[in-house]
């Protein structure tokens, strides 16, 4: 657990796929302590990881955990939520999170149990209790967090959090550093959101995957280059009549070697982009 700015704590996820060895602690998660209350930003990928995060909070403060922000539907960010149930926080999610949980929650839970075995015990879907359609100001006692709901990008239910007092911008999975971005919402939408995000000033950013904090907006350059390359070259592949199953071999191959887990996700990213862009 690293205190990257006053009262802002981040636990660094490992660059692996979920497994019993890592308890699905593969994303950057953490919390922010205010004068009156604590906000968790992503409870982690399993009940075990959520419980460890909660212990880290209790060791540092006796202030109540009032908010658990679920930045998006992906399992490595949300399955720790059940560890915070007894704190009775507001579970904060994007207005489209309930729909995404309905579609995918069961599948994610089964997959988590498959990957983690016994280490998945206690992990559950916790539906959000406070929905954000546009913006939400959370007051932790003289410390304001601005929660923004974004259009389809990494997923169709992405939130970011801006801590005004330290000017720390928690981008969650709208920002991937070192680990290959996963396109599970809209490549066109993500590039649009990214252009708007880059225009926002901050002293540091917290990526969903990557170091615990990075300079902003410079750290977004590789992600933007990857997404732009995939978009441009997928469009070219569609135009050239290359099929959906073959497109990934050539699209953005200049990006191989620049990202961790490239071969695990790139083909799926191109398939998703192809499916989106063939309607244009």
């Amino acid at each position, binding site marked *: 657990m690293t205190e990257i700015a006053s009262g802002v704590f981040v636990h660094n996820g490992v660059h692996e796929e979920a497994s019993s060895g890592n308890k699905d602690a593969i994303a950057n998660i953490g919390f922010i302590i205010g004068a009156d209350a604590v906000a968790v930003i992503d409870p982690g990928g399993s009940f075990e990881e959520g419980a460890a995060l909660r212990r880290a909070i209790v060791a540092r403060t006796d202030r109540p955990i009032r908010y658990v922000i679920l930045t998006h539907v992906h399992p490595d960010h949300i399955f720790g939520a059940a560890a915070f149930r007894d704190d009775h926080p507001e579970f904060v999610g994007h207005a489209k999170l309930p729909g995404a949980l309905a579609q995918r*929650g069961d599948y994610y*839970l089964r997959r988590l149990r498959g990957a983690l075995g016994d280490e998945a015990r206690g992990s559950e*879907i916790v539906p959000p209790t406070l929905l954000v359609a546009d913006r939400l100001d959370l007051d932790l006692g003289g410390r304001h967090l601005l929660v923004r709901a974004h259009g*389809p990008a990494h997923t169709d239910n992405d939130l970011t959090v801006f801590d005004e007092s330290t000017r720390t911008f928690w981008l969650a999975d709208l920002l991937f550093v070192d680990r290959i971005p996963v396109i599970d919402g809209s490549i066109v*939408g993500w590039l649009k959101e990214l252009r708007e995000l880059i225009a926002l000033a901050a002293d540091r950013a917290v990526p969903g995957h990557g170091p615990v904090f990075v300079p902003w907006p410079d750290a977004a350059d590789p992600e933007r280059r990857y997404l732009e390359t995939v978009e441009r070259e997928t469009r070219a592949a569609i135009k050239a009549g290359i099929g*959906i*199953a073959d497109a990934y071999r050539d699209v953005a191959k200049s990006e191989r070697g620049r990202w961790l887990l490239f071969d695990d996700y790139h083909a799926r990213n191109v398939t998703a982009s192809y499916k989106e862009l063939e*309607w244009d």
Partner: protein
Amino acid sequence: MGLTRSMLGRAISSLLLLLVVLGGAARAEPSEAERAARWSDLRHAIFGDRVVEDAGDRVAIDAPERAEDAAIVPVTIRVSETLGSEIRGLYLVIDDNPSPLAAHFVLGPLADTKEITTRVRIDDYTYLHAVAETKDGRLYATAQFIKAAGGCSAPAGKDQALALERLGKMKLTLAERLRPDAPINAKLLISHPNNSGLQMDQVSRNYIPADFMQTLEITYNGQSVFRLESDIAISEDPSFSFSFRPSDPGAAGVIKAEILDSSRRHFTQSWPVAAAPQI
């Protein structure tokens, strides 16, 4: 001599029941003998006691050996030139899917049968079988093994708002015709979730209802290119590449797609086709 739709439906229903019963037991990776037995069961459920011959080089399946995304696996069925004009139907069977008969194309007089491509969901490592049915009732089968898993229950819909807004919309792309006597190559995209009914809403504990395309009919100037009877194995946003030969290539025409889905929704769209260029 062919199966009627209701007979086929009954056969598939009883087969589904059988698979559900069998699926209750923990299942190790099936042996080749078990895979062969499954195909034998499927073949009897779909084609009864009719003889199904080995297609040899008459029919081929083109699919990736290992699928990158099991919910979107492109599959092409190819038919040899010699058999081409004799074909009246093509079946695509995904042996280990919960609902194995993925597609039955009933080819019309304008179909150019050389190849048809679609995208399917694949639930487990499985054989795919393509069966061509000739006008005189012969059946020719070919198989290909494919490594993909989880496609049927995989979550759909990356952008659900867009999916709803676009429901039923279609996009047709026609390849440029270089010669008037060449067939017209077309690619049709259909915006439809084609929900499998195998996804559970974890909050309400209800399954999200199946909602899929049941039939697709393609006509050109009122004459049939093909009629498809399909199922949950067709991927979200169904896609089809096919060819057809207008009876009068020198004249302009209209190609039309009509869809009926399991929620009894009906979608239709038409596109003009220019006359073939003069040589």
